[in-house]
């Protein structure tokens, strides 16, 4: 798909190229008014040019920062493009951020403009307007409810575009000018500033250069042979590096079409309709998907249920081998083929995954069972590893070399090394330029010789040569007796059990490992129904003795699996409790990307931690929580604590010896 003349080094230039070579191919879809409204590359270019002109007429200048706030909607993607056309810098912000978080980012990024989705976002920004003296104008997508607002500083994106079209129509020079602006863009320009979700404290603005983004993107596009015939569903948070990379950047480079769901709650239905060929989802999503499948199958009739489980079993045995092209007995292939017709095909179809050619998961470790479940259905699911600073990924699994516990081999033009302290460090084409307005942190994040510190501990697996990540380098601790204690690693092992939604493990500098568990309401709820366990609330269910038994079994398994890995054997879980509430980003317990904030939780639930280690049978807590509707309230609860039998390491060592 290389263009005739010099390769484009900015996204506006790519857009122009695509409008030329993919002119009538779909670029963007949006489920709206009951059908998938579609724009071709040519149409997008036309609209975005007009939009850019309109913006410039409203004072947007080279170097200005524009906040982009809202769900994945075409006009917000256009806003990014239009901004880049003018050499302005888009700053996507998580749409579900509360006004305060939002304000922090907007202030730090010194945004002068904001392109937002709807009334909700407009209100949110207006509510913190006093903190944003620099903010000049806002552009919104959805008119609904905004009719009676003061429009002196507020514009509907449609109007801006219309105004731009006018200008272009009236005066040919305008067209020439905007094309000039596009040409004026350089690869070294700041393409976008992405704010990290901030697993630890204040989030930082990662500055990325156009050239960097495009180089990184081109490598991965080539790596997975993505092309203009692919189709992706843009449902990941607009502000997350993942969406920007996978959909926006790769979309523009490969020229494939991205489809925006009607709304977040119809995303699953829309996924089913679109049936993307290139799909990314965090393990959590795959997990929920699987849970839903299993629950729904429970309600199926006897025959169908057994049929299903039989063939899923077959898939487990042969599926992955077949996918990896390994030898499989003929009858295996035959049964699998039948299963393909009766179960796998239909199942993938109802999940909307039947057209998937390449699927990725990342962000956190994925359960091996979960991982191989999807692969055994014949879906090419792979893992990758990276971070915002790398502009998304530095390693990925090549087709055919898939291992549940690795994150793949390093990508072309990427250089990775493991520091003495076990930290993974890299140099990559897409690596970030700096943290916005934060020299100190930038230095901190880089080594003297220009490698980026990932802060993750990991090692290259000798037999596969793939990278394995155990945990955040700084989080890896040791028990009193000196056994290695990587909390995340253990937590993930726990989370591989469908009943466990979240887990927080403690043990650094302690005598043993203890865990706080979040049950998965969907899974445990369904289980409760089948075993007619009655419960009034999440809290009640979480506290139910039978549920404790259920979880205890899972933990037992985890311990056994830990036992298998000598290094980990000492880190078996001795005690656990089930948290009375779901960990929640609104309470600051999770990051916006749903990662646990271990320290914060430790403080918040101090009484629990104490109880876990002082041997008491139960513990009380009273803590403030935020409800769905945003109201705050106090949750007070008494939770029981369970001991779990652990296999003494010594005996194990003997066996090993």
């Amino acid at each position, binding site marked *: 798909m290389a263009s005739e003349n010099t390769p484009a080094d900015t996204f506006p230039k790519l857009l122009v190229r695509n409008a030329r070579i993919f002119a009538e191919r779909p670029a963007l879809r949006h489920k709206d*008014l*009951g059908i998938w409204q579609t724009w071709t590359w040519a149409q997008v270019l036309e609209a975005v040019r007009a939009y850019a002109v309109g913006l410039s007429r409203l004072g947007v200048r080279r170097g200005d920062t524009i906040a982009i706030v809202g769900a994945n909607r075409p006009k917000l993607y256009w806003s990014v493009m239009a901004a880049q056309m003018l050499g302005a810098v888009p700053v996507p912000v998580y749409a579900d951020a509360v006004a305060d978080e939002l304000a922090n980012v907007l202030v730090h990024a010194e945004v002068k403009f904001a392109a937002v989705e709807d009334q909700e976002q407009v209100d949110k920004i207006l509510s913190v307007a006093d903190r944003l003296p620099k903010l000049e104008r806002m552009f919104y997508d959805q008119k609904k409810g905004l*009719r*009676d607002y003061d429009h002196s500083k507020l514009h509907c994106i449609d109007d801006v575009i219309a105004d731009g079209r006018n200008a272009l129509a009236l005066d040919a020079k305008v067209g020439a000018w905007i094309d000039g602006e596009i040409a004026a863009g350089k690869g070294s320009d700041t393409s976008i500033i992405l704010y990290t979700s901030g697993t630890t404290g204040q989030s930082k603005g990662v500055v990325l250069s156009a050239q960097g983004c495009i180089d990184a993107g081109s490598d991965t596009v080539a790596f997975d042979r993505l092309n203009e015939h692919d189709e992706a569903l843009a449902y990941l948070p607009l502000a997350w590096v993942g969406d920007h990379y996978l959909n926006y950047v790769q979309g523009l480079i490969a020229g494939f079409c991205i489809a925006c769901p*009607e709304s977040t709650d*119809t995303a699953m239905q829309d996924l089913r309709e679109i049936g993307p060929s290139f799909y990314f989802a965090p393990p959590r999503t795959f997990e929920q998907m699987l849970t839903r499948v299993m629950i729904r199958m429970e309600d199926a009739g006897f025959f169908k249920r057994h049929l299903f489980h039989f063939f899923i079993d077959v898939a487990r045995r042969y599926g992955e081998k077949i996918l990896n092209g390994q030898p499989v007995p003929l009858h295996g292939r035959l049964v699998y083929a039948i299963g393909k017709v009766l179960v796998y095909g239909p199942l993938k179809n109802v999940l909307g995954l039947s057209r998937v050619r390449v699927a990725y998961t990342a962000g956190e470790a994925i359960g091996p069972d979960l991982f191989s479940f999807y692969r055994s259905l014949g879906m090419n699911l792979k893992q990758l590893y990276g971070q915002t600073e790398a502009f998304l990924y530095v390693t990925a699994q090549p087709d055919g070399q898939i291992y549940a516990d690795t994150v793949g081999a390093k990508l072309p033009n990427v250089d990775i090394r493991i520091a003495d302290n076990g930290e993974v460090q890299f140099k990559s084409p897409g690596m970030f330029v700096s943290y916005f307005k934060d020299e100190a942190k930038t230095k901190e994040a880089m080594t003297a010789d220009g490698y980026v510190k990932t802060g993750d501990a990991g090692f290259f697996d000798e037999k596969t040569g793939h990278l394995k990540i155990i945990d955040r380098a700084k989080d890896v601790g040791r028990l009193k007796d000196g056994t290695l204690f990587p909390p995340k690693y253990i937590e993930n092992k726990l989370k591989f059990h469908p009943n466990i939604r979240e887990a927080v493990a403690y043990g650094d500098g302690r005598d043993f490992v203890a865990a706080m568990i979040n049950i998965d309401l969907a899974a445990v709820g369904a289980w409760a129904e089948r075993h007619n366990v009655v419960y009034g609330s999440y809290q009640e269910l979480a506290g139910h003795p039978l549920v404790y038994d259920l979880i205890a079994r899972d933990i037992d398994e985890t311990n056994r699996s830990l036992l298998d890995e000598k290094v980990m054997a000492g880190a078996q879980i001795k005690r656990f409790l089930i948290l009375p509430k779901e960990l929640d980003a609104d309470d600051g317990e999770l990051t916006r990307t749903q990662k646990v904030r271990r320290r914060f939780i430790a403080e918040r639930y101090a009484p629990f931690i104490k109880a876990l280690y002082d041997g008491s049978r139960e513990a009380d807590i009273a803590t403030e929580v935020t409800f769905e509707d945003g109201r705050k309230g106090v949750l007070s609860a008494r939770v029981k604590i369970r001991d779990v039998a652990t296999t003494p390491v010594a005996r194990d060592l003997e066996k090993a010896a």
Partner: protein
Amino acid sequence: MRAPADSAAVAGEVLLSVQNVSLSFGGVKAIQNVSFDIRKSEVRAIIGPNGAGKTSMLNVINGFYQPQSGSITFKGVARSNMRPYDAAHGGIARTFQNVALFRGMSALDNIMAGRTLKMRRGFFWQLVRFGPAVAEEVEHRLKVEEIIDFLEIPAIRKVPVGRLPYGLQKRVELGRALAMEPDLLLLDEPMAGMNLEEKEDMSRFIVDVNEHYGTTIALIEHDMGVVMDLSDRVVVLDHGAKIADATPQEVKRDQSVIDAYLGVAH
């Protein structure tokens, strides 16, 4: 809560006026010599205790009942009796006290049915469903989709209305009425049997319809709070006779109204 724009409307021109209308079934007098008017782009409430003849009044206005005496002037044309078709054709739409949807049809089709009067393509085109027929179908589908979006019911677009919960049925019915792009919208207890949340939504829609489309609205409602919030003027019926006609505030203070509601004998 009404924006100033509407108080202007209160003084606006008369869209429909009812003059000395009387209606009776057999011996039963449903409406006795009632007169009142509805002004352009106002929200007019008709209230009164049960059996006051409110619904009968709406039925007379859109021609479902023929009054024995009196006349109705709509858009300046006086009729002694209005035929339902003329009413619809003239731009009067209507929702019903107990939802009167086409139960066998999907929400979409119900609202599409509301476009019937706007559709022109003749029998032949319908037969072949080709060219102009399709074009027309699509054009109206778009209008309907906008209404669906406005009423926030995209999720139930293709669900047979029979299967919908009551609150949603009421919305679909409103949608069907809106699809007629009426000048005058008659709402018969739009919030009957709704929970608070649904009522709030419905009120919001009614206000939006009135403000955004400038549609004149006449509504029967029991919930006094709603009436006070929504309406510009209120006419009060009791035992088929008009006992008050004023602004909500005034009506609230009116003794005869209070009596009527408390059921004091006349």
